């Protein structure tokens, strides 16, 4: 609250600054003295509707923040619209948010193609497109798209972590890689090469791809085995990752196996592959697994569980999408806190790009969020974990991509 006395005390300079802030506030759509209105698109219907939980967690988190008095005295209203994971619909809904609802910016819209479809529009109109919920590296390109930022470690970052790990622990490794033939797979191969470094790129002795329409990847595994590789990077979605793990085991190929963030689910990858066959598989993680008993007394996990109990339904507790929304929204809240009274779009973007050592409750101990004018990848650190037949066992230090 700005009183007359405080104005007098802080003098004319502050008064001028205040007037400036007032003027700027009037110019920023969606921002009033009592409210910050923001928007997002989410696949509540359609093929990717399982991710809709992220949107629900985002909404629930802002409800919690508003119950606690909002941010710097303002309530946050998130308008979350369904786009059915269809890019033309995303464009329409995003324009509705910007032009009809008058939102200040876009937050945590989901999907690679949907986010790509509106990226140009938002950048042309200088509207922040913050924390796109996708692992594609194309949302970490501040030079070409200074108004667009991702959130989670992108595929290139993660593959880079694997590359560095291989270079350090198995310098003479011969690497084989299986990738899905799309942006995810391509990002992975690029990241792996970056991580290995130019002098080791030649150590990738075999690379195979598959189409999501193929029934199995058996033939690719046999080909890759033939290369004599002793490291096997599996950049595949859950079904194919399970097949790759099982087939490699069945043909008697025993390389160091690395699987991506996309396919580390025990229920949909390790169990279908066979838990014995999957023993020893290595992955990289950045979040606390809500099913892991180790975190039961962890204050971060407790805060998360409390949030779920009060603002979501009990079944959401073990849903990694709820963890995701919880983390992304907490990051958003931090950005808005840093903005203080200056909620212009320029300042929101500037603050999003100046997060320093920000720690989330549900990321692994030691992981912090850092961004800068040329680093638009908020989470860059991960820790390796190995599958022991029952769960993921963390090992080694935090690695950065």
């Amino acid at each position, binding site marked *: 609250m700005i009183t007359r006395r405080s104005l007098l005390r802080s003098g004319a300079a502050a008064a001028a600054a205040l007037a400036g802030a007032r003027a700027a506030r009037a110019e920023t759509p969606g921002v009033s003295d009592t409210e910050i209105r923001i928007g997002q698109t989410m696949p509540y*219907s*359609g093929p990717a509707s399982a991710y*809709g939980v992220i949107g629900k967690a985002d909404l629930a988190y802002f409800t919690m923040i508003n119950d606690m008095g909002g941010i710097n005295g303002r309530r946050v209203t998130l308008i979350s619209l369904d786009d059915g994971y269809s*890019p033309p619909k995303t*464009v329409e809904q995003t324009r509705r948010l910007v032009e009809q609802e008058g939102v200040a910016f876009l937050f945590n819209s989901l999907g690679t193609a949907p986010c790509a*479809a509106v990226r140009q*529009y938002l950048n042309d109109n200088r509207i922040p497109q913050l924390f796109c919920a996708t692992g594609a590296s194309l949302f970490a390109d501040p030079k070409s798209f200074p108004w667009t930022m991702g959130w989670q470690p992108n595929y290139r970052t993660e593959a880079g972590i694997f590359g560095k790990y291989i270079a350090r622990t198995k310098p003479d490794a011969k690497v084989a890689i299986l990738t899905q033939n799309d942006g995810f797979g391509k990002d992975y191969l690029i990241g792996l090469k970056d991580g290995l470094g130019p002098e080791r790129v030649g150590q990738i002795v075999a690379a195979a791809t598959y*189409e999501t329409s193929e029934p199995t990847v058996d033939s690719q595994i046999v080909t890759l085995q033939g290369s004599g590789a002793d490291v096997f990077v599996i950049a595949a979605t859950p079904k194919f990752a399970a097949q790759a793990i099982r087939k490699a085991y069945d043909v008697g190929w025993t390389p160091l196996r690395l699987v991506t963030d996309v396919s580390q689910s025990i229920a949909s990858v390790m169990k279908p592959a066979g838990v014995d066959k999957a023993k020893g598989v290595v992955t990289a993680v950045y979040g606390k697994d809500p099913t892991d008993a180790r975190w039961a007394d962890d204050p971060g996990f407790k805060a998360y569980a409390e949030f779920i109990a009060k603002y979501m339904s009990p079944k959401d507790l073990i849903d990694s999408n709820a963890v995701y929304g919880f983390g992304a929204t907490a990051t958003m809240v931090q950005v808005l806190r840093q903005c203080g009274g200056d909620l212009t779009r320029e300042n929101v973007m500037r603050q999003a790009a100046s997060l320093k050592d920000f720690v989330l409750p549900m990321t692994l101990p030691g992981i912090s969020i850092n961004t800068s004018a040329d680093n638009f990848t908020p989470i860059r650190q991960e820790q390796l974990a190995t599958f022991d037949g029952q769960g993921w066992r963390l090992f080694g230090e935090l690695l950065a991509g």
Partner: protein
Amino acid sequence: MPGPRLTRAIATLAVFALAVAFPFLASGYHVYQGAQVLVLAIALLGLNLLTGFNGQISLGHGAFFAIGGYGAAILTAKLGVPYLLAVPLASLVCFAAGFLFGFPALRFGGLYLALATFALAVAAPQILAWKGFDAWTGGSSGVSLVKPHAPFALPLTTDQWLYFICLVSAALLYVAARNLVASRIGRALIALRDQPIAAETMGVNAALTKTICFGISALYAGVAGALSALAVGFVSPESFGLALSLSFLVGIVVGGLASLGGALFGALFIEFVPSLADQMSGNFGEGAKALPGAVYGVLLIVAMAVMPGGAAGAVRAIMRRTVGS
């Protein structure tokens, strides 16, 4: 008392005048939505020629829509073809694709054809993401287009300009479809739907007529796809999922089978009712947030119960009562 013909002409003129005035009265976002409605109306006109007038059910028109969209995207973004040329070129490709697909489709009747075209709709997104076409289609990352600006320093925004391109295309294609239906070929199409044996006895070449009908129908879908790509500024495999093909079928049934004017209503329905369902389900509280599909289903059933002949059928019934008698 004006006759039904005159009433019809007045109504058509009024709709057109409203359509021309609309972009100057509405906001940019609504103009963009208007363009989407026109695009959908064009696709529905095409599908109605095939399904409504010729009795061939297609669940795969999203695939032709996709070919049109990617055609326009590749021609303008990768080959530098002017967009006004890219739209007809892309739709000619669609005509060829539809005509060729029409040959094997001839062997299937009714529901079997529906299944064959369904396969087309299922396959399209995967084929578009196939790595063999990567250099052209951009794989799953899609292709971005530059939105066309109004030429000759016309005082129109990009949205208004695109709207008028869509409006002129829709009007031309509507007139073309009307003339086609009223012509000898049109009568042959309807005869093949109602009495195939009698039609063939009268000398109608069933195979040629049906394949040409398939081709023309695909051409309409192609024009729609190409215009949609220009308006959205982006194409990707996800843009052309199975739901798109199904929504076309919903559109022609709600608008009215074998009614060209119904296409506009069908387009309005599939453009706005899903969002309406989303909003309505939001009103039932957070718990119903995931139920827009169910609300949409109820609205669809209500629409069909109130207007069994589609919107066109309902209008006809009202006309009969007030003007006709």
